[in-house]
């Protein structure tokens, strides 16, 4: 087994061990239903880290637009993919958290709304990428989009919850970042965050490696089709109205 697989197995086993160990711990204070508050270990780290990946995508996008080096396009794509995955995870676990704590899957809480909007914004990245037939143009436009789209993130994360007066996240935020969690909870929370970050970075590196292989294949295939020894010439073939050519008839 190569080093990278050992690293991944260690991460997964460690994360699972962490959660199993904690499953018998008492409930967290500061939540309406303390016993069901453990979902924050699945919910908060992806919600925080998706923003980091979107920021990285914006930086890589700007670097691609200024340098046109293919690596930065791959880094942008991989960052958006991992960020979107984390964002989707945060949305789904957020819905589970809302059901457990507030009694409803969807409350139109500003934080719930902002993470959903972020998810939609970055899903549009894939729609844009697939709409181009020219790969270079797709790379340039989507890199620009990844950079431009990040402008909305600070507004969604910091401004929206303050513009909308009512939020149910106040208590949860205070519990997580305001120091209301006991030391065991806080330790496990930050270890879980580091684990999720390590998993996401590993996935990001693998995705870039896969994209590089894809790119190499494309280049190889492109060069093969431009082989000078290939002397076949395409010529127009007259077609009948039913789609058959004269050659077919012969």
């Amino acid at each position, binding site marked *: 087994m190569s080093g990278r697989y050992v690293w991944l197995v260690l991460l997964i086993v460690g994360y699972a061990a962490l959660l199993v160990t904690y499953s018998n711990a008492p409930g967290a204070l500061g939540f309406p239903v303390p016993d069901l508050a453990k979902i924050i270990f699945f919910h908060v780290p992806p919600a925080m880290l998706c923003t980091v990946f979107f920021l990285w995508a914006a930086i890589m996008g700007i670097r691609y*637009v200024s340098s046109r080096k293919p690596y930065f396009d791959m880094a942008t794509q991989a960052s958006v993919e991992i960020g979107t995955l984390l964002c989707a995870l945060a949305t789904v676990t957020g819905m589970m958290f809302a059901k457990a704590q507030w009694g409803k899957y969807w409350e139109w809480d*500003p934080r719930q*709304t902002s993470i959903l*909007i972020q998810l*939609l*914004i970055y*899903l*549009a990245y894939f*729609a*844009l990428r697939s*709409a*181009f*037939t020219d790969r*270079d*143009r*797709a790379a*340039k*436009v989507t*890199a*620009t*989009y990844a*950079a*431009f*789209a990040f*402008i*909305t993130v600070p*507004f*969604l994360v910091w*401004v*929206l919850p*303050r*513009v*909308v*007066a009512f939020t149910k996240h106040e208590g949860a935020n205070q519990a997580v970042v305001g120091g209301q969690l006991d030391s065991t909870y806080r330790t496990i929370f930050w270890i879980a965050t580091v684990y999720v970050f390590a998993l996401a970075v590993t996935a990001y590196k693998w995705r870039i490696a896969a994209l590089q292989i894809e790119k190499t294949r494309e280049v190889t295939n492109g060069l093969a089709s431009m082989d000078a020894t290939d002397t076949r010439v395409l010529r127009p073939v007259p077609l009948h109205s039913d789609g058959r050519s004269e050659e077919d008839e012969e």
Partner: protein
Amino acid sequence: MRDAWEIVKKEFVCDMRSRTGLGTGVLFAVSSAVSLGLAGSKFEASASVIAGLTWAAVLFTSVVAVSRTFIAEEEAKTADLLRVFGRMSAVFWGKVVYASAVMICLGFLQAGLVLVLLSGSVADPLMFIASLASGCCTLAVGLTVCSSMAARAGGGAGLAGVMAIPLLLFVLAPGIAALRASLGDPLPNAWASVVALVGFGSALCAAGPYAFAAAWKS
């Protein structure tokens, strides 16, 4: 500055000739306002309902009216002329100014119609004007950038809408809050929503020319 003004004039003349932007937008604004009025004819709509419906309608009207700004250039084969016209910033600001003017006209038309049809009344005219004007300009900037990105892609205006609606959804939250306050709903610190709208619009204006230059010239 003069180049940008030339673009504004050219946009106005082309729009009057083809009637794709303003003409379609007016028709969509009126018909959507009538639909909302019909839907709400059997109940008395509160300020928050009127504000929410108005902003949702304005958002969709902006997609119909403004998202084709660069796609129409590609279809008419005039995009390359614009590319050699001169500075990218002049093209961008010319398009943004015209799109903002169109959106302000459509936004006020639509909001007025929804208010009349749903029997709403304006309690704070200054906030009503400030929230609608800043929101419409923000929508125009965002859609102009998205349109330039989608111009050469398959899907055209539909794709621009798919990109722009999530990007501009943020406008709805402060827009609705400010409009509710202007219609008489007592909201604490409602001007903060207008400031948030202006801030978001300014951020898009600051980044817009760079994003446009990168996408449009590719």
